[in-house]
């Protein structure tokens, strides 16, 4: 558990490690759900079960020096990018050892050693911030890339349109990763949005776009990888729409009764973990027994982690006064 975030990121070049990370994210989210149910986590949380392939596929294509903005449904992206489960769980449980010292919570995860800016609890807010990171890279002549991860709901807020327009005009090194899980909070996308394929909105901004099966980690890596390469080589921004599905409700209290009958089953039949596992076996990267062992190890580690983090102390009261102003100001 002492592996650094950058080492955890580098490990993702191996397809079995990608699967292992997806298993880790799934089991992590299920444990977080359980901790809520038993009252050990307060507030709210937004789980990403079903969207693991997108998080891991994205993380496998970018460098730790690239900047990422992600959302309040961000546990998976944070773990995929390399954050250690301990710092993430401790934050969600409000502990002093959490990545922001317990003042952020589930929606605010950050680790600049792997380029993850504080995750955003405001829909769409991460897009212009990522574009600003891209602006910094472009102005300094660096070959880093910014990535904004956001949901389908964000495509209806002004920040999405303003940022795509400006990013295209300035040919910024940025990739817009649209995680279309079909639901904006409690509302199915077709109740709020007159089109089903959201990547077509890029055409209004003369921007490249692509669509990818977000349940398939290999496809994600390939499509986002191409967009990242284009951005890194001066080719400008791309809007990539990944078709995913949110297996859980919007947040803690939501059991998603609004879902049409059978829809969840349909998507769970294409569970990204199952799809990836079958692919690894078919390609000869690992056999069933090896993958069983991976799963058992990850689950045992996370089980021990939950016990350890649960026993950790909360932050000292001074933590709420720290890091508001720079040392210069205070």
């Amino acid at each position, binding site marked *: 558990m002492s592996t650094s975030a950058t080492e955890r990121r580098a490990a993702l070049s191996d397809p079995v490690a990608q699967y292992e990370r997806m298993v880790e994210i799934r089991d992590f989210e299920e444990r977080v759900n359980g901790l809520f149910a038993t009252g050990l986590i307060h507030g709210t949380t937004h789980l990403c079960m079903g969207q693991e392939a997108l998080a891991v596929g994205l993380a496998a294509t970018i460098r730790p020096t690239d900047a990422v903005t992600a959302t309040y449904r961000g546990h998976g992206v944070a773990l995929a990018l390399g954050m250690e489960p301990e710092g993430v769980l401790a934050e969600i449980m409000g502990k002093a050892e959490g990545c922001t010292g317990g003042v952020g919570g589930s929606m605010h995860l950050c680790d600049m050693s792997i380029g993850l800016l504080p995750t955003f609890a405001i829909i769409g807010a991460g897009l212009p911030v990522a574009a600003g990171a891209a602006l910094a890279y472009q102005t300094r002549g660096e070959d880093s890339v910014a990535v904004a991860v956001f949901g389908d709901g964000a495509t209806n807020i002004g920040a999405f349109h303003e940022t795509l327009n400006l990013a295209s005009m300035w040919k910024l090194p940025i990739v817009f990763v649209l995680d279309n899980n079909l639901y904006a909070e409690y509302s199915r996308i077709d109740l709020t949005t007159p089109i089903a394929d959201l990547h077509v909105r890029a055409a209004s901004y003369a921007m490249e776009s692509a669509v990818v099966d977000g349940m398939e980690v290999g496809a994600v890596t390939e499509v986002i990888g191409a967009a990242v390469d284009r951005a890194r080589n001066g080719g400008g921004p791309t809007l990539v729409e990944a078709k995913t599905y949110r297996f859980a409700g919007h947040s803690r209290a939501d059991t998603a009764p609004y879902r049409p009958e059978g829809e969840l089953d349909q998507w769970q039949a294409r569970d990204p973990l199952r799809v990836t596992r079958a692919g690894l076996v078919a390609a000869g990267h690992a056999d069933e027994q090896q993958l069983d062992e991976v799963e058992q190890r990850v689950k045992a580690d996370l089980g021990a982690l939950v016990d350890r983090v649960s026993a950790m102390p909360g932050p000292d009261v001074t933590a709420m006064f720290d890091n508001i*102003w720079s040392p210069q100001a205070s």
Partner: protein
Amino acid sequence: MARMRFRQAVAAALADEMRADPSVLIFGEDIAVSEGPFKTSEGLLKEFGELRVRDTPISEMAFTGMAVGAASMGMRPVAEIMFVEFLGVALDQVVTEGAKFRYLSKGQVSVPMTIRASVGSGLGFGSQHSQTLENWVAATPGLTVVVPSDPQSAYGLTRAAIRDDDPTVVLEPRALYAERGEVVTGEEGILPLRRGRVARSGGAATVVTLGQTTGICLAAAEQASLDIEVIDLLTVYPWDRALVAESVERTGRLVVVEEAPESGGWGHEIVSTTVSRSFGRLQAPPFRITAPNVPVPYNKELEAMYLPQADEVARQLSDYLKTDEVPDPWWVREGVAR
């Protein structure tokens, strides 16, 4: 030392910081090719080129957020909001994103961005282009809000804002852009953030003010020969409590003069803090001279009455110093409104 207009002092501050630090870049609507609607970026595109001086589309939410992102990556961006009202569509990025990043990153991320906006009444721009709106942003931990009152403070605070490692909002009184004054440039001309200044010394009362009303208070003191101390707050949040307390405890009287409507103004905080902390030293009740609770009207005479002018300030201060009682504002005195 050079004689220049307020708007030229802003441009000089931007140019000097851009020369001193290659991480400074500026962007906003019509600021590059057209050198700013108020000519506050004159000469910058020519000297620093199109990578560092950029025209944006009319997209405040996007480019304000880009200032947050660029600052997070080590740049020192300066974004110009043409009229402060346009900040309304971008407020999230300033208050909820930029001002929170240090907190939500456990100190890993600094956001040394500067947001400049023109503010205030007096030029006939009507209700939607004449507000000061400092009260929208002046209560956010992590966000410094400054308001220059003359060419020197425009120069000194702009440079200080760009150098500061936290996000800063600089609200420039639009009616002062053409004002001329002597400006000390260079390092000596930089003013500290979060510090006010005594613009005029006096012993009978402390008058705390900000921006455009600073000159009005000074004029009022002269025309009525009042022995008042005028504190130009310069930073409205976090404000200079020590300077105000020291002065009020000496004079025993406090008056706050504000351009914004009476309700919910920053002056309430000055009064309330002073009453709580310096109660025993007060010789008369503190009060505020403000605009009435109305939108800024367009008609030239009405707009002039909206802003507390020198005659009105002089009259209220004179009455107060004579009686130690709180005078009514003109709209109550004349029975126009309550």
